[in-house]
């Protein structure tokens, strides 16, 4: 008997369809929570507000994980594309810091941002590089210790060919035995799992792909005082036409 040929779909296509179906209910639940928080269905007391805000944080995390899954399926199949545009990294950092301001404050984190004046632009995908910066800074906030300090800097490297981003925290750090796993899929240290069991461990893997597709490098180092970690990435600058 002849077997009927079944059309083969790429995994990324299947993930994309499933993700679309998952995103719709997420958008609905998110909208309902926002509506309740805005008082559209009557007054909300402080403790109800707290619960609703927690629900909102978690639903946003779920949406992020779904986006990560779509990205990963495309990375694995070699079909991950960036939409390259000239980007000012300091502007992206300012935007992310403004989005995270209340969260950092609530987490008792002090954020210091140092930047050189008049930095050249880099050629990358503005949305994707924002994702990278959000991911690194949100990890620094999430895994920082109480009264933690996060130092973010962006500067032109001495070679004047690349921009260097760094984010130094004095948080839980990365155990030495895990150094090689940090940028692999689903990696989560035991301490990270204790603090935030809901994380997917996909962010840094996606970060690496984005930075490398932009012609850059991403890495981390243990801080010299033994407390916490500094994450770095560098991206080539756009050469000005003479």
């Amino acid at each position, binding site marked *: 008997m002849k077997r009927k040929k079944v059309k083969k779909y790429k995994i990324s296509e299947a993930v994309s369809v499933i993700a*679309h179906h998952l*995103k*719709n209910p*997420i*958008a*609905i639940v*998110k*909208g*309902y929570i*926002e*509506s309740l928080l*805005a008082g*559209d269905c009557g007054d909300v007391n402080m403790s109800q507000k707290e619960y609703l805000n927690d629900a909102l944080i978690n639903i946003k995390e779920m*949406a992020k994980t*779904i*986006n990560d899954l*779509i990205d990963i399926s495309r990375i694995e199949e070699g079909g991950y*594309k960036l*939409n390259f545009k000239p980007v000012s990294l300091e502007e992206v950092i300012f935007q992310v810091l403004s989005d995270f301001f209340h969260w950092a404050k609530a987490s008792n984190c002090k954020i210091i941002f140092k930047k050189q004046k008049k930095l050249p632009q880099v050629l990358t995908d503005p949305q994707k590089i924002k994702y990278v910066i959000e991911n690194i800074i949100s990890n620094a906030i999430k895994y920082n210790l109480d009264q933690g300090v996060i130092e973010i800097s962006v500067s032109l490297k001495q070679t004047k060919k690349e921009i260097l981003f760094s984010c130094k925290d004095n948080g839980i750090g990365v155990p030495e035995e895990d150094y090689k796993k940090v940028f692999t899929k689903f990696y989560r240290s035991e301490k990270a799992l204790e603090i935030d069991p809901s994380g997917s461990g996909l962010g840094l893997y996606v970060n690496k792909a984005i930075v490398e597709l932009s012609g850059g490098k991403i890495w981390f180092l243990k801080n010299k005082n033994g407390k916490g970690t500094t994450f770095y990435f560098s991206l080539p600058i756009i050469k000005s036409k003479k």
Partner: protein
Amino acid sequence: MPKGKPKILIIEEDRFLRKIYKNKFTKAGFEFREAISGDEGLNKVYSEKPDLVILDLMLPKRSGFDVLAELKRDKNTKKIPVIILSNLAQEEDIKRTMSLGARDYLIKTEVSLSDVIDRVKECLAMMELEK
């Protein structure tokens, strides 16, 4: 913003989303109209003549891409601003709708309800300035 209550039409299959947007836009002072498919959406654009259309892309009967192309082809509707509100987040979808003439592209899971209202107001204000 147009004088009087601006009229918006949302073309969205999902009844839960239509429900929250109806509530929000009505409270924000808009006249709200809704359609659940591409075909119904096009018919309502012709019968209701909204000031702005919010359009999903994955729709029954006729996709949002087709609806947008149709609206921009017709001289009677091509000036009505269309904001895409979709969960498709790939660059090619965004580029395709922008080249078809959409004014803005919002991703459902990434914007808040008030962001959507703000963008609609901004878009209507821009349209007034362009008149």
